[in-house]
C-alpha cells in the first residue's frame, strides 16, 4: 500500500482523486456519525471492539474472555461495564490490550471457561502498530468499524435485518446442537492441558493489575449440563483455585440457560445471564 503511496508523486491525478475520496469519507464519518450495527466477521469484531476500548471507552469494569463471554453483549450491560471478549480469542489477549492501552480499570472479570487460550499476537500487533495506532485516534475513517462495507452492511441490516423480537425468539437448531455437543463432550474429556506458558503469563498480568489496585474476579459462563463435570471444566477450575486466591462470581445454575451448541448461550439466555452477572458483580464489590 505505502509503496504505491510513496510513489504517487509520479501520478498527481491518482493521488488528488484519492485524497478527495478520503476527505469526503472522513467528513461523512465525522459529521454523519453513522451507526455501525454490523461488522463483517468475528476477527473484525475483535479488532473493532478493541479499538473502541482503546480510543473511546472509559468503563471501569471490564470483562475479558472467549467467544462464550461475547454472548454478554455490550448492549445488555450498564455503561460502566465493557465486554472485551473475543471470538476465537481469550483472556490473555484482553488483559494485554488493557495493559498496553495504559488504562487501569477498577475491576476486571476473567472468564475461566477458556482461560488458557493462547494470546492473539497478530491482533495486538495490529492494534498497537507504531505511529499508526496514534493516528487512528484522530482519523476515525481509518478505524475498522468505519470501513465503507460496514456502513453498507449496517444499512442493509437496519432495513432488512432481523427484528429485536426475532433475535429474542432465536431457537436452538437441534441438529447443529446434537452434532456439536458430542464433539464438545469428546474434546472436553480428552483434553491435555499443557498450559504452563499461559499460566505464567496470566500470573504476571494479574500481578501487574493488582499492583495498580485493580480487582481481578473470575467467573464461568453457563454451559450445557452434559459438560459440567467434564475433565476440562474441573481441571481449569482446579488450576485457577490452586494458583489464585481471587474472588469468583458464583457459579451459574446451568439448568436455567440454553445454548446453541453446548457452550454458546442463545440470545434470551445470554440476556438473562448478563443481568445475573451484573447483580452478582455489584454484590461482590459492595461487600
Amino acid at each position, binding site marked *: *500500500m*505505502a509503496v504505491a503511496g510513496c510513489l504517487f508523486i509520479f501520478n498527481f*491525478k491518482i493521488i488528488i*482523486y484519492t485524497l478527495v475520496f478520503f476527505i469526503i469519507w472522513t467528513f461523512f464519518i465525522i459529521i454523519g456519525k453513522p451507526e455501525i450495527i454490523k461488522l*463483517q466477521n468475528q476477527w473484525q469484531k475483535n*479488532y473493532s471492539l478493541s479499538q473502541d476500548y482503546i480510543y473511546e471507552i472509559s468503563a471501569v469494569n471490564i470483562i475479558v474472555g472467549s467467544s462464550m463471554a461475547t454472548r454478554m453483549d455490550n448492549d445488555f450491560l450498564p455503561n460502566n461495564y465493557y465486554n472485551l471478549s473475543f471470538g476465537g480469542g481469550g483472556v490473555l489477549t484482553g488483559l494485554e490490550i488493557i495493559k498496553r492501552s495504559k488504562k487501569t480499570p477498577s475491576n476486571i472479570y476473567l472468564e475461566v471457561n477458556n482461560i488458557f487460550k493462547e494470546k492473539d499476537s497478530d491482533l495486538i500487533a*495490529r492494534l498497537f502498530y507504531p505511529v499508526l495506532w496514534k493516528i487512528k485516534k484522530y482519523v476515525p475513517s481509518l478505524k475498522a468499524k468505519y470501513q465503507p*462495507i460496514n456502513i453498507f452492511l449496517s444499512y*442493509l441490516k437496519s432495513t432488512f435485518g432481523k427484528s429485536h423480537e426475532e433475535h429474542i425468539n432465536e431457537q436452538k437448531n437441534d441438529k447443529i446442537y446434537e452434532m456439536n455437543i458430542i464433539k464438545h463432550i469428546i474434546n472436553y474429556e480428552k483434553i491435555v492441558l499443557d498450559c504452563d506458558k499461559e499460566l505464567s503469563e496470566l500470573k504476571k498480568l494479574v500481578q501487574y493489575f493488582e499492583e495498580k489496585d485493580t480487582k481481578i474476579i473470575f467467573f464461568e459462563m453457563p454451559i450445557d449440563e452434559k459438560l459440567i463435570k467434564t475433565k476440562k471444566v474441573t481441571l481449569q477450575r482446579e488450576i485457577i483455585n490452586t494458583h489464585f486466591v481471587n474472588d469468583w462470581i458464583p457459579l451459574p445454575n446451568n439448568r436455567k440457560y440454553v445454548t446453541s451448541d453446548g457452550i454458546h448461550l442463545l440470545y434470551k439466555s445470554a440476556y438473562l445471564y448478563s443481568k445475573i452477572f451484573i447483580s452478582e458483580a455489584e454484590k461482590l464489590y459492595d461487600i
Partner: protein
Amino acid sequence: MLFNSFPFILLVIITLVLYYNRFFGAYQVPILIISSFTFYAYSQPYLLFLLFVSASINAIVSYKVYLEKIIKKKKIYATIGVVFNLLVIIFFKYGPLFSDILDSFNSFNGIGEFIRTIPLPVGISFYTFQGISLVVDLFRDNPQKHILNRVNYNFKKHYFDTLFFISFFPQLVSGPIVKAYQFFPQIKQKYFKDIDLDVAIKFLILGYFLKMVIADNLKDQTFWMTYPYFQNYSSLTLLTLLFGYSMQIFSDFAGYSLIAIGIAKLFGYNLIQNFNFPYISKSFSEFWTRWHISLSTWLKEYLYIPIGGNRVKEIRLYINLYVVMLLGGLWHGAAWSYMVWGGYHGSLLAIEKYLMRFTKSPSIHFINIFKIFIVFSFVTFGWLLFKLPEFEQVILYIKTILLNDGARRIDIILNIFIYSFPVFIYHLNYYITQFQKGKYYLNKNYVYAMLLFLIISNSGSSGVFIYFQF
C-alpha cells in the same frame, strides 16, 4: 517479509534510492542481490544458505554448459544441473513423504524423524524451477537466440547474473517463475528516465487492491470452510464459500503477481504476465493459458514438449497431458490432495480434447457464457482440494453439501458476493473489451484512485499469501 509489510516497503525505497543513484550505477546487480538476500533472510536467515548454495551451483554448472563446445559433454553438464535442482526440491519438499517409508526400516531409524524436522524453504519450488530453466536454456542456446551477452562475458559476470536471476526479490518466493531466456537479455544498466512509472504504479495499486481488499477480506469468510466448522452450514452457504474461495485464491495469487510485476518494473525488469483473466475461459485448455501462466508455460516448455507434446499418438497424448498435470499438482506440495487436483485437471483436459473431435460449437454469446460457467464451476470445485488438506475432509464437505441440514448464513453469503463483485467486474470489463477493441473502461485515474482509497479504508486483516506455502 510480506509485500504488505512496512519492512518490505522500506527495503524497496532504500533499494530504489541506491539503485538509481548515479554513483552506484555500475553496481545495480549487486545492489539487487543484497536486497534480495535481505528480503529472503528477514524471517529465517539460515534458509539463505540453501538459496545461496543452490544459486552458486546453478551458476557453475550453467557456465560449464555455456562454455562447452562438445554436445555430449554439454548434455552431461546440463543433466547434472537438472538433477541437482530436482534433488534439492525432492529432498526439501517431498522428504516428509519418504520419511514415513524410511521409518519402517530399522536400519534407517531416526532418519525419517530428522527429515520431518527440516523446514520447507520458502520459494524453493520457484527458484529450483528457475535453476532448471537456466541450464536447459543455455543447453538449447543457439546463435540465433543468444541468452547471454557474449561480449566480455566471464564467469564473474555470469555468477552475479545468476545470483540475481534466481534471487530477484519481487519474484523469489511466489513467482512469476522467470525463464532464463526471458530474463538474462534484460540484465543491463537501467536508467530512471526509462521506467514507465504510470504502468508500474497501476500494477501495484491493482495488485494491492486484489490482495488487501479482496483476498484478505474473503479469507475471513472462507475460514468457515475449514474442518470441522463447515459441518454446521447449509448447502447454499457451503457452495457460496467455495465460490468465495475461488475468488480469494485468484485475488491472492493474481494480486501477488501484479505486485511482483509492478515492483520489477520499478527496477526496469519485465516479468511474465501470470494471470490473464482466467475466469472467462471457455475451455479447460484455455484456462491453463490464463492461470499461473509462468508455471503452465514452464511445464509446457520443459516437460510437455520434451516428452513429445502433441506430436505423438492419441493415447500417448492423453498420457502426456495426465503426467504433466499430475506433476503440476504435485509441484504445489507433498500431499495426495494436490496430486488428485492435478489428476482432476488432467482428466478434464483429456476429456475435453477427446470431445472436441466430435463437437464444434458456434461462437455465440449465450453459448460462450454457458461454457465460461461450466469451466468456472469445475475449476472452482477443484479448489476444494487446495483448501482442505485431508482428502477425507473433502469428501465430508461434499457430503455436507448434499445433506443440507446446517444453518444458512446470510451474512457470510452477502459478504462473499460483495467482495467477489469487483473480481466479476474485472473479468467482465475484459470480456466486453474483447468485442470493443481499445475501450478498456476501467483504465481511468479515478478508478485507480478509488481502488487506492479502498486499500486505505477497507483492507482486511493481513494474511500470508496462499502461494507462499508452495
